[in-house]
């Protein structure tokens, strides 16, 4: 599979809502208060109000279910949704939990974003699939998003 860089996306997460033990695992919702994205064909800000609805499964894998709105620097709104998985060695996951900086190659943090927009300039986003590699930081994740060619 060939891919190429679509954008890097930095998301600011604030005020995690610990829903707790639900029938599927442990659920924590992470509200998104902002962020930035930049790529060769689009750049702009993350509109406050999205979130990442996470579920820690019984097998230790964290499922990510992200929804947010991007606003390009020329005013187009783009709906983004992304399912992902995060897991790794226990000590690495514990370090992430303490908010420590960890080399992202030490754990698996991958997502598969989709985009929807009504703006013709960015209509190409409606017609592609993407994958991302995440780097979990204390203030929020940084995603390197590639479009599948």
């Amino acid at each position: 599979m060939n891919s190429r860089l679509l954008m890097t996306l930095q998301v600011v997460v604030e005020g995690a809502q610990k829903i707790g033990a639900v029938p599927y695992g442990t659920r924590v919702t992470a509200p998104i208060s902002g962020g930035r994205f930049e790529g060769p064909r689009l750049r702009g800000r993350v509109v406050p109000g999205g979130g990442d609805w996470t579920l820690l499964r019984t097998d230790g894998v964290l499922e990510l279910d992200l929804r947010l709105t991007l606003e390009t620097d020329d005013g187009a709104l783009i709906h983004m949704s992304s399912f992902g998985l995060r897991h790794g060695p226990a000590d690495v996951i514990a370090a992430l939990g303490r908010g420590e900086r960890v080399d992202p190659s030490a754990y698996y943090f991958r997502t598969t974003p989709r985009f929807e927009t009504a703006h013709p300039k960015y209509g190409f986003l409606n017609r592609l699939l993407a994958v991302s590699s995440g780097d979990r930081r204390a203030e929020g994740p940084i995603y390197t998003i590639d479009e599948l060619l």
Partner: protein
Amino acid sequence: MDPGRRDLLKLAALTTLVGCAHVPPQPSQASPPDRKTTVLFQPLLTLRLTTAATQDIGAVPYGRRVTFPIIGGSFEGARLRGEVLSGGDDWTVKRSDGVLELDARLTLRTEDGVLIHTTFDGIRDDAAPGAPYFRTRFRFETADPKYAFLNRLLAVGTGEIRADGPVHVVEEIL
């Protein structure tokens, strides 16, 4: 992660990087932002589906809905192979912009008898440059420890419609 698997990942990463070198540079990549991380792929399996007569639901609020019953098939990769059970479906909708959305569920049975619940979605864009652009996202669920690695990965596929049915070449996102 055990050392053997780590080596395998490294090898696959190198192979993928070498493969990427053949992609012609795009003009739009003149000043790409810094890459924090890199996305790499490794072959997982090739899935061949046999479908029955389509169910043409018709014009629904989202577009034209056509359901493809999956009645069999096969899959093969370095770590798993077997058959596709009858009973799955691909629920497709052709959107107003001409893109076909796929939404499939099926069950795989490995040659050693393990059932693997499989879902995929994706798009087929027959109007794309170098069309069709036919890409999918796969997920798997299994209860068998031997195949539990499938529970922990995301995968993407390239689809193709052949005379004897759809074929998806599926790669694990490393």
